[in-house]
């Protein structure tokens, strides 16, 4: 596959991510911030996001597993996750977090567990997608093309 085709595939893939709501406007902003002085900005931010989120999801699982659930703590974790996901534009994760927070407010353990599942699902989906995207980017760079993330 030549570079142009790969670039087109990259563009299509990105467009589909936007279309399906996995990513929103904010991701575009991140792409804009990537420049010569900061060539790996997006990857760095996204990796940080992955680390943060996995830690938070773990903590959430533990917190909801307790006999007596500390909803304040759960809410704090979800708030963090929501902030992170909205900062990188992971729209579906963010929306799932919003729903999660509602259940926290209502102190509904069942609902929270369900939401946690939902958030995990969305997170792993978007993680998958982003990892594929980065792989594509690497391929393009390896083939000598210009970085597709930087317009």
């Amino acid at each position, binding site marked *: 596959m030549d570079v142009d085709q790969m670039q087109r595939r990259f563009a299509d893939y990105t467009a589909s991510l936007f279309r399906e709501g996995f990513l929103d*406007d*904010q991701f575009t902003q991140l792409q804009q911030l990537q420049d010569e002085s*900061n060539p790996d900005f997006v990857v760095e931010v996204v990796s*940080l996001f992955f680390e*943060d989120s996995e830690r938070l999801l773990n903590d959430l699982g533990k917190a909801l597993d307790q006999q007596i659930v500390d909803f304040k703590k759960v809410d704090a974790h979800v708030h*963090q996750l929501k902030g*992170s996901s*909205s*900062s990188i534009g992971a729209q579906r994760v963010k929306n799932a977090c919003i729903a999660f927070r509602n259940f926290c407010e209502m102190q509904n353990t069942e609902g929270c567990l369900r939401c946690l599942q939902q958030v995990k699902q969305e997170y792993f989906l978007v993680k998958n997608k982003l990892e594929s995207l980065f792989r594509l980017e690497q391929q393009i760079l390896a083939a000598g093309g210009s970085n597709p993330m930087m317009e």
Partner: protein
Amino acid sequence: MESCNCIEPQWPADELLMKYQYISDFFIALAYFSIPLELIYFVKKSALFPYRWVLVQFGAFIVLCGATHLINLWTFSTHSRTVEVVITTAKVLTAFVSCVTALMLVHIIPDLLSVKTRELFLKNKAAQLDREMGLIRTQEETGRHVRMLTHEIRSTLDRHTILKTTLIELGRTLALEECALWMPTRTGLELQLSYTLRHQNPVGFTVPIHLPVINQVFSSDRAVKIPPNSPVARLRHIAEKYMPGEVVAVRVPLLHLSNFQIYDWPELSTKRYALMVLMLPSDSARHWRGHELELVQVAVALSHAAILEESMRARDLLMEQNVALDLARREAETAIRARNDFLAVMNHEMRTPMHAIIALSSLLQETELKPEQRLMVETILKSSSLLATLINDVLDLSRLEDGSLELDLVTFNLHAVFKEVVQLIKPIASVKKLSVSISFALDLPEYAIGDEKRLMQTILNIVGNAVKFSKEGSISIAAGIAKSEPLLDARAPDFFPVPSDSHFYLRVQVKDSGLGINPQEIPKLFNKFAQNQSVANRNSDGSGLGLAICKRFVNLMEGHIWIESEGLGKGCTASFIVKLGIAGRSNEPDHRVVPLNRVQANFPGLKVLILDDNGVSRMVTKGLLMHLGCDVTVTSSTDECLRVVSPEYNVVFMDLGMHGTSGYEVAMRINERITKRHERPLIVALTGNTDRATKDNCFRVGMKGVLLKPISLEKMRSVLSELLERGTLRQS
């Protein structure tokens, strides 16, 4: 047989006497024998005769006496020795028993007498008990009266009825001749006769309140006897030949509650009393007895209690209502908050896709397209524009409704606004072959201060309606200054546009020769979602919100909007007046006199401090600011931030949603730490929620701006530019 020595009685001579003696003896004996029998019979009958053995003795005595007398019967004729012996025995026995009985009686009679005394004593006691019974009965009767009174008085609830009922019942219970109620007048200086029992219409007698007799009654809490000739008691001008009955007066406390605080039921300031006067029937020689006076007092107390109870009930009702209202208010507030939250989310969520659709479709339009494709794209563009407008309208209206919309005051070119509207409307108008003309009054200033965008929106809406509802003819727009005369619109008779040194009133009139409106429909035009039913609705593609929004904008601009039409087919004239500021005056501080037309692209050397506890968010903001050339320092906790902050920093971006700390507190601490105002860094808040309350709180602690996360590159650029130029993001 030897006859005895007794002289033989001369039977014939004393025969009569003998006969009488004989008969008497016989009867005596009979009586003597029957007395004990009677005694025995009756004693047997009675249960408690204590002296039975005395009876026996007595009986024996009598029997023997009887026997003696009986045996005497035989002595009148010759009798044998046996009879003699029997008589002697009997007499001896009798003598013996009689002596014993006599001796016994000495012993017994005092006892019997004491019995008599006891009997007398018991009788007295019985008489006393009788009297006491009489008293108790009277009391019981009084009690019954009181219960009746209570029942009657408490069965009514109205204050005046309570007092009148008291009067009536007292009159009935005590059989009074007259019963009158004197109430204090409004001035408090006189007592006015307000009700009497017998008189049907009390003519407004008044009596000054400071009479000594009245003071006497008012100062005592008991019923007081007053002389029958005192002014309050002289109700009927009858000839004085009647002996007036006794009169008693009692004070009736009046409740004087001026306000109904919920938790602080005021003390009964009963400085006001009414006077109740009760008169016994004249010529009846009745006197006011103790228990009757007490009855009167009880009745007064009852009526007072009944009034109090009624007031308490009113208070409870008010409290309940207050609680219910409070609940309703809180529910309403919750609903409003929920709606605002929803709107805040939908705001962003709805506009973003719309924006994408419109942007991409317009981009598409620029590319090479086949005619059919072009048509399709144009349709998409048109529909999405309409949708965007609709969304904006609805969101705007909701914000307008709860008063959270604020005008964006800028200086703008008034003439240009109108010209732009005409430009926008010209294409459609020329398709419909309508001619559009504007005329400006000569004294209309060229520049004005106001909300340019919304003014244009209003004018566009009205002109657009004129074009929409006209099939042919012409549209004329006239703009000028409103004269300070009352509007001819009946719906706003109080609207006087009064110009001042800093403001003038713009008057715009749009006349069209179109379909017109039925005058009866005009009031409904400005209601939300109402469409003019007489127009073919298939053509109308509006939401019916346009005029409602215009009305609200006009109201925000302290103006008035109205529509006149002669009728269907006769065209219609829409006019509005709004208040605008006069440009060129320097009494509008803090307004953007000239909009920022040069936004800095880069900010080299600008030292910025970030406070955010979310790693990802921190990194993104840092990347953003570094891309713009700033010198960025990141901190992730309030302690770190307070340690690091110094006058070196120009701007601090602070995330408000940090867990466990209040961004407001940090801002206050920073401002405290750096006392010199010009050395302080400009603090800007980053938050996911930019509602009114958050904004107010931020500005209150001294922050210079509030930004909605996530923030785009362009927005950050303009924010930094504005901060550097004006020192604040706040528009007053």
